[in-house]
């Protein structure tokens, strides 16, 4: 039953130049090239170092709280009347989302490289919180760049980061969201490259980030694969995960890529609908280009300028996507679909009321699509949905939409 991923084409990406097919690469200013080379060399050495792996595994077990459960949402599945839906409970991780899997790993790299300061970009604030958390634990100085618009709509996470000792720097350029936070983090890194480690939160950015963030997030799919076999005696028929930059999706999908019978659905943010042009769905409605260090699908205009995006969830509000997803789209291994704001909000309420689990608005996009998919499948079939984060941080957003004032 076990297929060794190393024997498949999926293990050969990225290549030595950091490319996934024609995507990926290292499109950054010369000042950063040596820092990227150093990071790659350190990562390649440590990733095969048993002592480093042991340290990482222990952190994941005892600090993050892994493995996260694979929970069968029986009542929700029954209400839909189709496939059995299992939720990979990344919301139960320390700090409440999958983001910490990666920050624990990158912070260990920072420690081994002797960098006293870490920086991060954040959209919804989950990656910022996960970075601030691990920085507090390791005694690293931490500054987090966050678009002014996101600072406003994710006030709770801003305060969490401050409590953890991080400094949150509001970004006022451009669209004042995640992409602008990433621009500003890059500007900081280019200025402070000697003493600073840039903890990128998703599988985007220049090589080696899309590779190493994927590797750190693959713990999700490795566990889910084992848990599905243990709990159902077989592999799932379908995997569903939301895609902003795409780190939770690649983490779930990657260990299953060679399992031909497992269908995969990456759910992008449809915002007000693809036809409205107010969305964040580059794989569904964008074209290839270059942004933030890699070649990938982007939302861009006829002149190659990056377009403003819209999603009710700050964590999906990004005009690009990790380059490996672009490649998986082109080779047809993963289906990329959308869920709109209103569908995600309905799924948020449904899961909360039917299963007593309050999902993040990002994860709610995956749930919304899973509901449609399950309805077309039979009760013997199994869907695994990545419940990538918990919804506490979104309560203000949901309340506001429902017209409730605190």
């Amino acid at each position, binding site marked *: 039953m076990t297929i060794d991923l190393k024997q498949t084409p999926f293990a050969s990406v990225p290549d030595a130049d950091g490319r996934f097919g024609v995507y990926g690469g290292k499109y950054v200013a*010369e000042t950063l090239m040596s820092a990227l080379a150093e990071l790659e060399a350190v990562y390649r050495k440590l990733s095969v170092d048993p002592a480093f792996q042991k340290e990482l595994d222990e952190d994941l077990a005892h600090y993050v709280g892994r493995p996260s459960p694979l929970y069968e949402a029986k009542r929700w599945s029954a209400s839909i009347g189709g496939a059995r839906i299992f939720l990979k409970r990344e919301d139960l991780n320390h700090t409440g989302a999958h983001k910490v899997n990666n920050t624990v790993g990158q912070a260990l790299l920072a420690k081994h490289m002797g960098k006293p300061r870490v920086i991060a970009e954040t959209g919804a604030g989950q990656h910022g919180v996960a970075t601030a958390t691990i920085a507090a634990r390791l005694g690293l100085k931490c500054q987090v760049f966050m678009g002014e618009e996101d600072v406003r709509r994710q006030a709770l996470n801003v305060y969490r980061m401050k409590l953890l000792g991080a400094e949150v720097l509001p970004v006022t350029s451009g669209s004042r969201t995640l992409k602008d936070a990433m621009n500003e983090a890059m500007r900081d890194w280019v200025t402070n490259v000697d003493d600073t480690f840039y903890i990128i939160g998703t599988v985007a950015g220049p090589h080696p980030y899309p590779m190493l963030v994927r590797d750190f997030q693959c713990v999700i799919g490795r566990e889910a694969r084992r848990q599905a076999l243990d709990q159902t005696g077989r592999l799932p028929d379908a995997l569903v995960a939301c895609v902003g930059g795409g780190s939770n999706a690649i983490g779930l999908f990657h260990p299953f890529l060679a399992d031909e019978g497992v269908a995969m659905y990456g759910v992008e943010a449809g915002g007000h609908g693809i036809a409205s042009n107010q969305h964040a769905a580059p794989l569904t409605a964008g074209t290839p280009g270059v942004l933030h260090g890699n070649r990938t699908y982007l939302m861009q205009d006829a002149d190659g300028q990056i377009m403003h995006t819209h999603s009710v969830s700050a964590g999906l509000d990004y005009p690009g996507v990790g380059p490996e997803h672009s490649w998986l789209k082109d080779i047809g291994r993963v289906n990329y679909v959308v869920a709109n704001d209103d569908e995600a909000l309905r799924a948020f309420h449904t899961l909360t009321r039917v299963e007593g689990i309050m999902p993040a608005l990002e994860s709610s996009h995956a749930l919304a699509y899973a509901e449609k998919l399950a309805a077309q499948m039979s009760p013997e079939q199994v869907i695994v949905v990545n419940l990538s984060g918990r919804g506490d941080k979104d309560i203000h957003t949901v309340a506001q939409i429902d017209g409730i004032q605190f």
Partner: protein
Amino acid sequence: MSRLAGRFQQLAERGRKALIPYMVAGDPALDVTVPLMHAMVRAGADIIELGVPFSDPMSEGPVLQLGHERALANGVSLRTVLQMVSEFRKEDTDTPVLLMGYANPVVHMGYAAFANAAAAAGVDALLTVDIPPEEVAPVNAELQRVGMDNIFLVAPTTPTQRIKRITDIASGFIYYVSLKGVTGAGHLDIEDVAYHLGLIREQSSLPVAVGFGIKDAASARAIAGVADGVVVGSALVDAMACAINAGGDSEKAMAAAISLLAEIRQGIDSVPS
């Protein structure tokens, strides 16, 4: 010989250092750029560096970020920038024009289409901040086909063995980034710049211009003492923005930039050759 190489050769023969002013095309207003280019040449510019505005200018400091935002608000695209160069070429066929920008607008137009259009407009060279040697082969092939130079950055963090990799594929001149940071930063270290220029010159006979952090006659003079060319950008863009913010019109903005540029020219020329 390219117009750029020819210009550096003339300057070397006359013992003069190149002054390379930068402006964002279409900032502060669409109709300012071409007259400003001509005025800069009259004020002593040897090469014009025209910024192609981009929505996500990751290497720019606050001053040039605002310049890019203003230009985009004025509706400037890569096509508009090429039209401006065509317009400039009606009266000036001698001054080399270098486009500086980011990968995506060029990628989106297509390397071949860009090379054809840029060469037809009279553009001499391209500098894309985020296309390092590792990614440059396909764009370089197109630029070489139409006889355009590709300008590469060398940074303080570039390892010695990597400098040769860059100089081997560079033409026109080498652009040395004087500091670790974004455009307009203010911590220039002349001794450190001189040391790195020495490393570059061990590998290449191409002229070396220095940019980032040069803001007035004094810093330009110091750089001209060690480099073949001086790039000034943020200071000029800021001078124009300040004039506009003080209630001035486009004429006032141009006058402010030209006045600063003339001072910088004097500073450079005061270096004993």
